[in-house]
């Protein structure tokens, strides 16, 4: 019984047959790049998947959705959603031997839009992701001094007191919002370019260019460092973290399971979204990378291994992060308590050491009984370790505020700071390799640039254009723009693309044909698990996540948080509404890539109807495919 599929004319003419693949394999034909060895391929894929999200999004989700209990939805969705999608992308890339535009055009010319959407998303996400790397580099450059610049408040202009914005918030907040971003009070207030940020951005893009210059020939070498160094640093931090006071409290807090959270649908949604984004699916980079493999590479095994590594890295880095957060929370708690004790000693002129942490509560009670007004006037803070632990921060707040504060309290701070930011840098850079691959290869396939232009030139142009547009993020309001890009460019379009990918492979390419291809490539037909997940389970999960995301975003008031020293609740961030013109930008970010999918199909339909040209002809416009056909022409 054949699985139902949509009619698809001329598929056989557009894709290389199994015999042609065997021939290409034997002759090692063409100018198509190849991996030097399997290790490079695996490290590149691991590097692309493992990114900043593993370090600063997963620990927060884990802690806020019931600790150890979060592992259950995470692992279930990893198996049902992550692994099948990963295997699908690997297999289709390896079979059709082309980048994202080439693959989807080969399956059906009306599906070119999926590839173009991948291109746009890779481009937009790459722009803001590299800005985060620029921020990491700024902190890295500033780590080569003792004491670290974010460990104390600077003195004001006439040397009378510390800067008030800093004393009211904290040195780390001040360094992040003022010295690094010089943030304005709203997204509309651009505030001009910050020269030091422009320099860091330039450095980030140049470094990316030098690594991606020749495509996988250069990135393949770079990943030996960028994919392995984070694990080394994480281990160093784990060992260091476990020797610090309070680290075990943090780890316990992270993993304490709260099974009630499993009843909450948002737990499952967040787990699904995290698995999806963590695997860097739908960017087109993974399809491209696996197309450089030999035809008989075992993509099924690769998908499983990389998924396991990705899941393990998430859990491992969560442990490390929370051991350090536990240390910071304990330090904060101790400082808070010490401050209170000092206030009491000073107010009542009691001898030092008469009130300690142990008898603090009862001493306070005694004093409150006899001198309530004095106690009131002291304005003592409530010190609760759980509150400090659950100051769950994620994203840039975790890396640049919470973690940097923890580092200042460790001995030999500059060393830990340098290690931490090198790790973040490597994590980000290896993800950027996939982004650039997902941008450059489709551009080549679409023949946007003349064919004789070398890859170096195309990569250079992509980096240059991205750098120029990314100067938005170097303004005073850059942080708000980045949050905007992060919420909209990197969320909804990816879900749309992934859903279309699965429908395209299962129903338009044909799951039966796909099964035969995999049997040809790896020697055995995919088993029942893959069949069920590819046909029903994974598309359903992606659809559900998309619907919920879409509904939440559309129905909620779109707001953002801003740093405003003159607001009432300072240092709490102010919640502001986006101005009306932002909705245009949101549409460009989220709507355009999503609408390109049907848009291109309609465009091609109109063109076909108007010119009566045969769209299903044997002309395959992609550079990557053409190279093979030409080479087979010469070798008679």
């Amino acid at each position: 019984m054949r699985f139902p599929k949509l009619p698809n004319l001329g598929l056989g003419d557009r894709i290389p047959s199994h015999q042609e693949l065997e021939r290409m394999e034997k002759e090692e034909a063409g100018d198509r790049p190849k991996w030097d060895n399997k290790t490079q391929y695996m490290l590149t894929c691991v590097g692309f998947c493992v990114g900043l999200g593993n370090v600063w999004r997963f620990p927060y989700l884990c802690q806020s959705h019931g600790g150890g209990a979060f592992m259950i939805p995470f692992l279930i969705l990893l198996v049902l959603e992550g692994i099948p999608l990963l295997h699908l992308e690997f297999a289709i890339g390896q079979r059709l031997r082309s980048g994202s535009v080439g693959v989807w055009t080969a399956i059906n010319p009306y599906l070119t839009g999926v590839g173009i959407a991948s291109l746009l998303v890779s481009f937009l996400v790459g722009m803001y992701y590299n800005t985060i790397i620029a921020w990491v580099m700024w902190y890295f450059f500033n780590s080569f001094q003792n004491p670290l610049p974010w460990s104390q408040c600077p003195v004001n202009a006439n040397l009378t007191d510390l800067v008030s914005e800093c004393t009211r918030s904290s040195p780390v907040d001040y360094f992040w919002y003022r010295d690094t971003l010089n943030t304005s009070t709203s997204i509309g207030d651009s505030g001009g370019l910050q020269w030091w940020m422009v320099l860091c951005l330039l450095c980030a893009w140049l470094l990316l260019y030098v690594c991606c210059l020749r495509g996988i020939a250069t990135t393949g070498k770079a990943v030996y460092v960028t994919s392995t160094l984070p694990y080394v640093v994480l281990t160093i931090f784990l060992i260091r973290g476990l020797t610090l006071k309070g680290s075990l409290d943090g780890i316990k807090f992270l993993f304490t399971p709260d099974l009630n959270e499993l009843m909450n649908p948002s737990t499952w949604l967040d787990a699904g979204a995290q698995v999806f984004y963590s695997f860097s699916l739908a960017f087109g980079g993974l399809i491209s990378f696996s197309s450089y493999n030999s035809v008989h590479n075992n993509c099924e095994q690769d998908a499983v291994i990389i998924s396991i590594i990705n899941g393990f890295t998430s859990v491992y880095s969560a442990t490390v992060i929370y051991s350090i957060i536990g240390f910071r929370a304990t330090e904060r708690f101790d400082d808070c308590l010490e401050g209170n004790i000092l206030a009491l000693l000073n107010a009542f002129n009691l001898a030092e050491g008469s009130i300690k942490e142990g008898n603090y509560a009862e001493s306070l009670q005694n004093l409150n009984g006899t001198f309530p007004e004095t106690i009131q006037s002291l304005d003592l803070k409530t010190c609760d370790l759980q509150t400090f632990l659950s100051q769950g921060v994620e994203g840039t707040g975790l890396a640049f505020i919470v973690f940097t504060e923890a580092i200042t309290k460790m001995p030999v701070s500059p060393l830990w700071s340098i290690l931490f930011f090198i790790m973040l840098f490597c994590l980000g850079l290896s993800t950027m390799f996939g982004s650039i691959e997902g941008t450059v290869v489709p551009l080549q396939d679409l023949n946007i640039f003349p064919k004789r232009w070398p890859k170096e030139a195309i990569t250079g142009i992509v980096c240059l254009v991205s750098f120029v547009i990314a100067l938005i993020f170097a303004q005073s309001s850059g942080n708000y723009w980045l949050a905007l890009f992060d919420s909209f460019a990197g969320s909804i379009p990816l879900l749309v693309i992934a859903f279309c990918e699965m429908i395209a492979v299962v129903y338009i390419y044909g799951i039966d044909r796909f099964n035969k291809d995999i049997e040809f490539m790896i020697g055995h037909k995919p088993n029942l698990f893959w069949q069920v997940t590819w046909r029903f389970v994974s598309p359903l999960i992606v659809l559900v996540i998309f619907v919920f995301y879409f509904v939440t975003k559309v129905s909620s008031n779109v707001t953002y948080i801003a740093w405003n020293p003159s607001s009432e609740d300072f240092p709490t961030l102010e919640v502001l509404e986006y101005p009306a013109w932002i909705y245009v930008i949101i549409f460009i970010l989220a709507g355009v890539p999503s609408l390109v999918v049907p848009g291109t199909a309609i465009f091609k339909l109109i063109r076909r109807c108007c010119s009566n040209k045969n769209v299903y002809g044997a002309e395959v416009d992609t550079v990557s495919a053409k190279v093979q056909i030409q080479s087979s022409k010469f070798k008679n």
Partner: protein
Amino acid sequence: MLVWILFLLCQVGAPALAQDLCQRDAPNGYKVRISLKTALGEDAYEWNQSEMFFFQATMAFAMRRHFQMETYNVDNIILCVQTSRVSFWFVVTSPDNTTMLIPKADVEKAVRMSRHRINNAFLLSDRTLEFLGIYPTLAAPVNPDTPPWLIVFGVVIGAVCVGIIALLISSLLQKRRKEKGMTEDGQDEEDMQVKGVENGINLDGTYNRGFTDDDRFTKL
């Protein structure tokens, strides 16, 4: 006799007068707070009358240094309201007239001038030997000529630029080498094609140069 009674009265009255001068919240006095355990931990010494005497001596030294008058003495520093926190109040009397107090502002100037010496005398710091109301002057920030981050930035970007140029040059050289190799092959192909085709027909023989018309033009 009268003189003797007066003398007795002075002896009794002086400390009482001193007590009136020095009291809690005295308008010309300062409160001092000392945190020995915070500063020295295990090595903290005991705060006793001898230490109080030492404090008086240090303050007298500070007053001498500031006013450049050698007449200040330990008796001019009056201490009171001692607590177990270790905190106390002190006032400074003028050496010429023991009933007159030195104004607060002058005392502050004297303390500021010799703050470092006073701190070191007691092995304490600005934070652990507090004169409530006299804020420590903040250390002037050290401003290096080039911010350290620019140096690291310069190193990184220099290395990256060198890397880019090296890779681009090697790509260019590789391409030129390939082109050179290809044009040599191409020439052979061209010759083959020229030899084999005549009038558009592919001939399978080798071109016999013997039949070329070298002398097309008649010689003179």
